[in-house]
């Protein structure tokens, strides 16, 4: 083909291509921007609604005192006083305990699955954990109310403590721990599997036993990935609503550090007693949601900072 025809054809094709492709690209940008905008929409609309109870322009004399809201130790005092401080403390306490139980279990389970078993057993256990991860929270709620709270009641009787039918801090902690174990385990498994095998071989060659190698080499090398799993698990625990609401009870005041008494978390406050869909009692739930978002963001930032700090010494 003579060069000039080719050149002609080439400009024709590229020009044609460019316009249709530009249009397609522009059209495809719309759903992408839409998908990305939802996070911003969540922040804007929830804070807009969540701020409204504190504004005299919206609720007049019924508006809630913000200072009392963030420092209060009683959820509701008629007519318009709400307090959330003790709920935040309860939530942090419960999530901390749940993490305290779930993190070691998850890490050891991950170590077992990733390193200590033949392939078939490893696949079996991993499938178990994956199934556990896919169970919806409402089913954990049914199980929590039907079994966990009964177990807690039994434990309470053993220690001669009073509980409201097992509805307590401890039940909430157990249910949450059950729910975050799969999250942390699955991420830890991939972190442990990603550890360079040469490191382990070197350690073994130096005369360390298998367990010494796993604890001092494998887990230490995988700690960054394991930490990512922990961050995800803690985030899930903070935001978990349905199952927690079913076993937390709805204590009116606090904070409570008694394992056997009823408690109240941010999410259970939002879900329980939801009747009206307008008015102060409804809008204040958006304020609670706002505090929950802030708590989750702060926890994430804190844990990420910790992760970087821990990672630096590897």
């Amino acid at each position, binding site marked *: 083909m003579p060069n000039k025809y080719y050149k002609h054809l080439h400009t024709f094709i590229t020009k044609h*291509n460019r316009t249709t*492709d530009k249009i*397609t*690209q522009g059209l*495809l940008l719309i759903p992408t921007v*839409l*998908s*990305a*905008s*939802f*996070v911003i*929409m*969540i922040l804007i*609309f*929830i804070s807009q*609604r969540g701020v409204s109870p504190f504004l005299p322009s919206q609720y007049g004399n019924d508006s809630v005192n913000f200072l009392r809201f963030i420092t209060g130790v009683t959820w509701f005092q008629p007519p318009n006083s709400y307090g959330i401080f003790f709920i935040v403390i309860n939530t942090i306490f419960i999530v901390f305990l749940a993490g305290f139980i779930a993190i*070691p*279990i998850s890490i*050891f*389970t991950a170590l077992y*699955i990733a390193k*200590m078993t033949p392939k078939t057993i490893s696949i079996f*256990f991993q499938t*178990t*954990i994956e199934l*556990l991860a*896919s*169970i*919806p*929270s*409402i*089913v954990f*709620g*049914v*199980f929590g109310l*039907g*079994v966990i709270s009964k177990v807690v009641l039994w434990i309470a009787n053993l220690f001669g403590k009073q509980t409201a039918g097992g509805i307590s801090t401890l039940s909430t902690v157990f249910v949450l721990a*059950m729910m975050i*174990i*799969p999250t942390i385990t699955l991420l830890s498994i991939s972190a442990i599997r990603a550890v360079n095998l040469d490191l382990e071989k070197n350690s073994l060659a130096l005369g360390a*036993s*298998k*367990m010494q190698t796993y604890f001092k080499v494998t887990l230490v090398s995988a700690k960054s990935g394991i930490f990512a799993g922990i961050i995800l698990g803690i*985030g*899930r625990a*903070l*935001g978990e*609503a*349905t199952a927690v609401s*079913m076993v937390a009870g709805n204590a009116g005041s606090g904070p409570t550090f008694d394992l056997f008494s009823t408690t109240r978390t941010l*999410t259970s406050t*939002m*879900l*329980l007693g*939801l009747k009206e*869909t307008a008015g102060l009692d409804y809008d204040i*739930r*958006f304020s609670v*949601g706002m505090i929950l*978002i802030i708590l989750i963001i702060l926890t994430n930032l804190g844990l990420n900072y910790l992760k970087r700090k821990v990672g630096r010494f590897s």
Partner: protein
Amino acid sequence: MKYSKRKKIDIFYQGIITLIALIGLFLLIAIFGYVFKQGSGLLSWDLLTSDYYATTYDTYYIGDLGDTIYERPSNLDDSVYFSSKWGIGLTSALDNEGKPIILVAYIDSESPLNSLPDKNNEGEFVRITENQALGKVIFSNYTIILSSEGPENAANLFNQANGIIDMITTTSGKGIRGSILTTLYLIIMTLVIALPVGVFSAIYLHEFASKKSKIAEGLRRLVEMLTGVPSIIFGLMGAAVFIPFTSTITAADGGNLISGALTLAVIVLPVIITSTEEALKVIPDDFRQASLALGATKTQTTFKVVLKSAIPGILSAVLLSVGRIIGESAALIYAVGTAIKDKVILTERSTSLAVHIWSIMAGETPNFELASAISIIILMVVLILNLLVKVVAKKLSYQGGKKT
């Protein structure tokens, strides 16, 4: 064989870790065991197809009964008392509150009870069917059936009577047909909304946006942030954004299924986008270059070559989304509501299966049996979806492996 001290310590630790690893398995068995033990007795076709609320029928029968004698079917249980004059079999049962009731166990297809005039609706007819509970019956000879006197007495009274002045029956209720329908509606609407948006976003992010573009990177970050948002926050968003939105454009007033589907669509968007992008990543660049070399535009290449190869990935995105929709409760409690309905209307409230559980568990007297029965259904669906995702993922990796 004698182990050294170090070896002993090693074995000790190994044992402990094995025990800890068994906890997950134990929990899974405990959860499945519990819901099956509690719920399997209730699980039946009736549960899936009947209404949640009991309906009461009020009827009578005046006319010629004739001399027909109905045969007692041979396969009828011994505990069923049969009236050969009316062709009805009665048995005793307990209602949800544990009170004894008389249950209709069998109705002959020729029986006059198959079509009785409805006292509440002039001109309508009522059909007495199996599993309806017999309330009060007053016969034309002024004998009365009371449910406390048992089915044997009732069957005898039926045999002596020639007409019915007043008969009240109640359907059993506590079925989940409405919630199953709602769940299906939600799944379909959510996918119709989220699938195009998600797939197109993924195509933009992976195929069209340049790899170094800061804007594309920012957009992707924002989408990824959605995965960390708890479902109750999505619910608040549904209540604050989608309920007012649907209320203005439809006849809805307050929470409705469309606002629920929109909320769910936001929840599954990151799932669809990441899954589709993963699928796009494994498609070899040779495909794209071959198509472009043949003179196809980038648009044609993307939609006719790349998208076609990404179908397994999109399919697994759909499966994951369906699983998420079925299990979702907190978001729907806010974005739709918790009122259980038998008649499902898109612009009104009703409950998905998961929210149905919440509704019957959150009250003063939680109904563990029904909740567990619904849990079994949810768990089974989620289990099957999980297996399907694995099959699809295997197919996807195989395809990628074969063609590269």
